[in-house]
């Protein structure tokens, strides 16, 4: 009995703690894991970006909250040259870096900080290039070393980027996490003090929240940056309670131990919807799950075979069984949240009879034997590739195509499919910068067709020409037209079976107001308030 009263006393103390917290406006977010570190240019995971670039740092331009549109960030305006080869950014004045226990800024943000942030990732001569193991995977992954010709400081508040080739998505790249702006002054100070690593461990940015403490696998604490250039955040304190298990995150949300949680179990969605204290937001994710035909191998060299198998696949059954409702049929290679999404494109209907006829026309009246590669891991665009492969296998069997399911360890899978060892492969993509180019050129362009991300190994000149044209102009209206045309060509040629876009669910307490789902899959708390 005494034991029970102890627990009761404790839980009362805990709930009193929470009552006090509401007054201090503390928002607790049950995050899914520990960040790899606090410098977003060094790492690639969304968990790290949530903890660093979405809270502590800003970029020259940024995505308008909840959209993929670009708006001014640390640059209040910019212009691109007519040839698309140079971008001039005019920096915002009076922006202050955060004051932390290690650092009190002596000057405002200026062009030196922009130069430092990019040069550290780009130039081997930068003193901090090798710091913290410096590999800058995103900077390299987005081909910046090839693209950048020079970055020049025009004056304290003007920076000019010159490119080697015109690349319209460059502006969107500047809104990506790796392009976060660090303080050159802080870096110099820490270097002088002999503790250069501090800039990556105790980060200083210009963002809405500043880091106050971090305990690995347990908790990250932030406080609102009082000097934030766009106005102080509505919540005073932001806490990430690191909770790796989805069922436990939901339990914590129900018990009031946190107010927002990411990545609920699909199986819990129904019960979350019924809970009167919880609001469930949902949106299509910025991703696409697909099956790519190896168009270099017979019989997939024949467009009729690819079209036939498109018709033989029952996508709705996949959405129901594999996504359990948390997905939407994909008809284009880009998700509907991206500009230039062509809604006029008509998907292949599920029609086994027609598929069989088309196969016969292509010379395969009795079908053929092939393989379907299924990923060994859960991805946002495909929660269960094995199950998906089984459904496709059964569908194809109905039109006489006998497929064997093949799988490898994830790293191996990526490597072998890149080398084109497959006949057909299940894979997907999550967008980086919200630009259609980031899906279509990266995944279907000729440049990636030979041992690149283009798993269909599909190099089709009419399609590729449209993409190249779209890269060369910065006029959004013109680009939209070109990408819309490209989607029509893509559907006709059917190098993929576009399968699904996932649906992202965000359960949160009713007390949370103003939360917007980030189409990039991140989690942001500036602009969020508590009732």
């Amino acid at each position: 009995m005494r034991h029970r009263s102890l627990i009761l006393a404790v839980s009362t103390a805990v709930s009193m703690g929470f009552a006090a917290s509401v007054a201090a406006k503390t928002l607790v977010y049950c995050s899914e894991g520990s960040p790899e570190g606090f410098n977003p240019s060094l790492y690639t995971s969304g968990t790290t970006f949530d903890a660093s670039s979405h809270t502590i740092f800003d970029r020259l331009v940024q995505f308008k909250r909840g959209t993929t549109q670009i708006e001014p960030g640390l640059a209040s305006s910019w212009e691109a040259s007519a040839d698309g080869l140079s971008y001039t950014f005019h920096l915002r004045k009076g922006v202050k870096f955060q004051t932390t226990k290690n650092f009190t800024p002596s000057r405002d943000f200026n062009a030196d900080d922009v130069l430092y942030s990019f040069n550290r990732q780009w130039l081997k001569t930068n003193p901090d290039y090798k710091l913290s193991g410096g590999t800058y995977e995103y900077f390299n992954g987005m081909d910046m070393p090839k693209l950048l010709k020079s970055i020049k400081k025009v004056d304290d508040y003007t920076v000019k980027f010159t490119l080697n080739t015109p690349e319209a998505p460059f502006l969107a790249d500047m809104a990506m996490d790796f392009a976060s702006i660090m303080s050159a002054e802080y870096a110099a100070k820490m270097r002088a003090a002999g503790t250069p690593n501090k800039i990556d461990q105790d980060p200083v940015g210009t963002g809405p929240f500043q880091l106050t403490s971090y305990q690995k696998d347990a908790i990250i604490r932030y406080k609102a940056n009082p000097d934030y250039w766009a106005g102080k955040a509505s919540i005073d304190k932001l806490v990430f309670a690191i909770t790796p298990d989805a069922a436990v995150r939901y339990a914590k949300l129900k018990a009031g131990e946190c107010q927002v949680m990411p990545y609920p179990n699909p199986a819990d969605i129904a019960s979350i919807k019924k809970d009167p204290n919880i609001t469930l937001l949902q949106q299509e994710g910025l991703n696409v799950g697909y099956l790519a035909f190896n168009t270099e191998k017979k019989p997939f060299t024949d467009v009729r075979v690819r079209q036939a198998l498109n018709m033989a696949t029952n996508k709705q059954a996949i959405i129901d069984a594999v996504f359990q409702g948390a997905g939407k049929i994909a008809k284009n290679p880009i998700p509907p949240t991206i500009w230039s999404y062509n809604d006029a494109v008509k998907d292949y209907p599920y029609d086994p009879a027609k598929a069989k006829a088309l196969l016969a026309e292509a010379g395969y009246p009795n079908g053929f034997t092939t393989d379907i590669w299924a990923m060994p891991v859960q991805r946002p665009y495909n929660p269960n590739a094995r199950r998906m492969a089984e459904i496709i296998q059964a569908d194809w069997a109905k039109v006489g195509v006998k497929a064997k399911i093949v799988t490898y360890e994830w790293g191996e899978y990526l490597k072998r499919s890149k080398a084109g060892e497959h006949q057909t492969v299940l894979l997907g993509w999550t967008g980086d910068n919200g630009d259609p180019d980031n899906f279509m050129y990266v995944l279907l362009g000729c440049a990636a067709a030979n041992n690149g991300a283009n798993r269909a190994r599909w190099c089709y000149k009419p399609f590729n020409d449209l993409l190249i044209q779209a890269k060369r102009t910065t006029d959004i209206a013109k680009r939209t037209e070109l990408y819309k045309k490209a989607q029509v060509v893509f559907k006709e040629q059917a190098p993929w079976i576009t399968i699904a876009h996932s649906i992202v669910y965000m359960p949160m307490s009713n007390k949370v107001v103003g939360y917007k789902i980030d189409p990039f899959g991140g989690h942001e708390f500036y602009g969020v308030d508590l009732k």
Partner: protein
Amino acid sequence: MFKFFLTRVSLVIPTFIGVTLLSFALIRLVPGDPIELLVGERGIDPARHAMLRADLGLDKPLLTQYGIYITNVLHGDLGRSIVTKEPVIKEFFTLFPATVELSLFAIFFAVLIGMPMGVLAAVKRGSIFDYSTMGISLAGYSMPIFWWALLLMLYFSVYLGWTPVSGRISVMFDVEPVTGFMLIDSLLSDDRGAFTSAVSHLILPALALGTIPLAVIARMTRSSMLEVLSEDYIRTARAKGLSPLRVIGLHGLRNALIPVVTVIGLQVGVLFAGAILTETIFAWPGVGKWLVESVRRRDYPVLQGGVLLIATVVMTINLLVDMLYGLINPRIRRK
């Protein structure tokens, strides 16, 4: 005793070689490349891939890699994590106190309940109490920890609201990590509620993690007690007219303790294994979860270093347990 100690310690060397070799070889036998995993769908061009592998020293022959690793270990350098780029030893000692705290409480709980349960079951052999406790302990032993932990959490934390769901302390208490042991740190902090909050967070994870050792200890105590109770000296003690409490407590239990203590020592290994699941469910920032994550990401240095450090701890504890025998039973000391 000293000679015994020396023989035991000398056994540590082959164990050390075995552990390093195994952890080194096993993780490399599993297909997968840390760099491919890091870049995912995006991919990486072959030249850059080769450069990164060379940076990590993965381009050298395996035997050379092992040689470098062992040399570094002997110099006290366990390397840096491929993922976070932090020194392995630093990460380990940030997380290890949490695992120790949880394991200590789990074993404390298991012994506190399990031993009396076993003794009583032995004394009341064949009674309903005997059958029911042994039945329950068998169930406890067979229970999947993650399921049991979730069940406990849903009932006590979500349904009844008695205990907090997960974590080591309420997020309202910003306790400075001095020792890494939350109970001690919370006492050191000025916050009054911090200590009670830390205790309340410890109850369910310790219960979940302690369930299997409890079952094992209860069953071991019972069978060992039964054996001892049929010994001549127990009959003699009874014949001398000693009170049943003295017969069971002093002559019975003390003699029955040796196998029980061995089992408790061995349970330390079981605890670390169980901690992996318990830590993940209760969001407990310990080394178990850290190691699992390192396997998933092929973070070779973390896995090798972590396994080596844990093996060292388990070996040390078992050595101490062996030393304990002598204290409990003088007959062993004389041998």
